[in-house]
């Protein structure tokens, strides 16, 4: 089937990836095509962690894009996933966020068709009719009515799913640097310490851009500079893998004082010289837990996952698109199974920094909504993404939008526009 490219997806002829037409963010047709070509296409989507499925029969409801998906642990101990839609009349089968099926069966409440953890159809009530009347045709073949299955992979305890047979293996998909950072943060068995959820009235791609944007960090998020803890002078940079995935990182030991002088000259709101002080500095206390000086890493595995280490907080952020103008952000915080009590207490206190009420992160929901509000019309206009030049790829500084340009390059390839 040939899919006609909607007019809204046509890029302005005189631009490439340094200008994105606003119609890409405000249009249902584009959104539907994304669900088809990206989320149902050759991409790995975050589903959860092995830790969330502790026993055989454990399950968790989630989504790939906006398609409801259930992840299970089968009787063989392996992880499976299927679309949460009965093969009979299309009803939702699993109605809980998480839990355990004691008999390993998942039964649709509508007509009690029963499936196993793999999504295979096991039982159809009254298949042979009652007292010789009714029932399914004689040639009814249960094996042809399994649930729509999701290909899954468990990588260092994290579960990803894809609908496409063309999706490459997970490490190839991630690329070298994302893969390295993934292994770094999943250095041992993890323990989920809770979820928080945020519903944002903005297009999901504004958030993808946001998490590849080192330029905004010190300008929008003013918690650190307000309390005299300046950030843009720290070392770090951005890396791009396979166009759409990226790593932003900050190193603690590479502060550059000349940068600070430039910042003062620019007279932004950013720098405040000791006007306010934390009354309880224990908020920022923590401990070194990696064998390097990286204090912050935010890496994104397009389209559905952002992983962060911000000081001692560790988190999977799952991006769940709901419409062209809404998405949900599910924050799953974790530690390691062998955390000391002291480390856990730092993680708890630093939760204040991140998440829907995070002192240094709450504005990301706001900025996404600010963009969405302003682009409801004028789809023929474009934004302007030229910080740090017009190229794609990695940079060893923060004053760049190179990773965002790379995203749009990859997006156009995935969407075939």
């Amino acid at each position, binding site marked *: 089937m040939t899919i006609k490219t909607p007019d809204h997806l046509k890029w302005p002829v005189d631009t490439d990836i340094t200008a994105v037409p606003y119609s890409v963010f405000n249009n249902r047709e584009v959104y539907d095509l994304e669900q088809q070509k990206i989320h149902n296409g050759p991409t790995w989507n975050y589903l959860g962690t092995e830790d969330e499925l502790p026993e055989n029969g454990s399950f968790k409801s989630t989504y790939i894009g906006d398609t409801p998906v259930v992840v299970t642990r089968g009787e063989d101990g392996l992880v499976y996933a299927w679309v949460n839609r009965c093969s009979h009349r299309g009803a939702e089968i699993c109605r809980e966020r998480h839990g355990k099926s004691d008999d390993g069966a998942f039964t649709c409440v509508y007509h009690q068709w029963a499936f196993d953890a793999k999504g295979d159809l096991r039982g159809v009530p009254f298949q042979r009719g009652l007292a010789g009347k009714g029932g399914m045709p004689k040639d009814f073949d249960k094996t042809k009515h399994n649930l729509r299955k999701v290909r899954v992979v468990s990588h260092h305890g994290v579960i990803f799913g894809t609908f496409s047979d063309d999706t490459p293996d997970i490490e190839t998909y991630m690329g070298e640097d994302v893969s390295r950072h993934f292994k770094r943060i999943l250095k041992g068995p993890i323990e989920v310490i809770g*979820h*928080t959820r945020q519903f944002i009235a903005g297009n999901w791609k504004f958030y993808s851009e946001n998490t590849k944007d080192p330029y905004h960090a010190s300008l929008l998020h003013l918690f650190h500079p307000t309390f005299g803890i300046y950030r843009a002078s720290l070392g770090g940079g951005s890396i791009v893998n396979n166009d759409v995935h990226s790593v932003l990182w900050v190193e603690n030991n590479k502060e550059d004082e000349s940068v600070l002088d430039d910042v003062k000259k620019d007279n932004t709101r950013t720098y405040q010289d000791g006007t306010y002080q934390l*009354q309880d500095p224990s908020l920022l206390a923590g401990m070194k837990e990696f064998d390097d000086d990286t204090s912050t890493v935010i890496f994104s595995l397009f389209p559905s996952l952002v992983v962060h280490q911000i000081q001692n907080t560790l988190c999977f952020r799952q991006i769940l698109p709901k419409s062209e103008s809404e998405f949900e952000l599910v924050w799953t915080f974790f530690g390691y199974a062998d955390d000391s009590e002291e480390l856990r207490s730092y993680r708890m206190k630093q939760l204040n920094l991140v998440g829907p009420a995070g002192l240094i992160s709450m504005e990301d929901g706001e900025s996404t909504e600010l963009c969405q509000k302003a682009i409801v019309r004028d789809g023929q206009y474009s934004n302007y993404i030229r910080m740090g030049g017009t190229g794609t790829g990695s940079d060893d500084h923060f004053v760049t939008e190179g990773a965002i340009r790379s995203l749009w390059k990859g997006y156009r390839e995935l969407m075939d526009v």
Partner: protein
Amino acid sequence: MSDDKNNLTLKNEVNDLLNAYVQCIDDDKLEDWPSFFTDKCLYQVVPRENHEMGLPTAVMWCDSQGMLSDRITALRHANIYQVQWYRHIISNTVITSVINDEIHVQSNYAVFKTCNDGESTVFNVGRYIDVIVRVNGELKFKERSAIYDTHRITTLMVIPI
């Protein structure tokens, strides 16, 4: 005066504290908000799903008056958010027990949020679980947990519950 859970004077005092607390927030007198707590305290805003699963993750978690004050300083001078007002409604306040001078209280709450567009929405609904103590004759929160049902926070949460 006896601190017994059926003591009417105590019930009145507890109700006064709960009412004054929400009035302080709704009237935007947030600088006074930390004074409702003891110096060392626990204030946490926790999604119900975590509470029920025994998982500790909270969206706000403060264990000192200083941390509460820092939240307000950040709200006033650092964080970026659209103009908004809260209106708290509290009900079903029950003193569940009084043990060793600690008054255990539960109540339901609903917070409506109104932004500049004039629409009021139900922003956060849940229950408070409190441990209240007497400091120099005045009741203070030693612990206040807001366990919220509305586990999908719209946009962001900057003002405390």
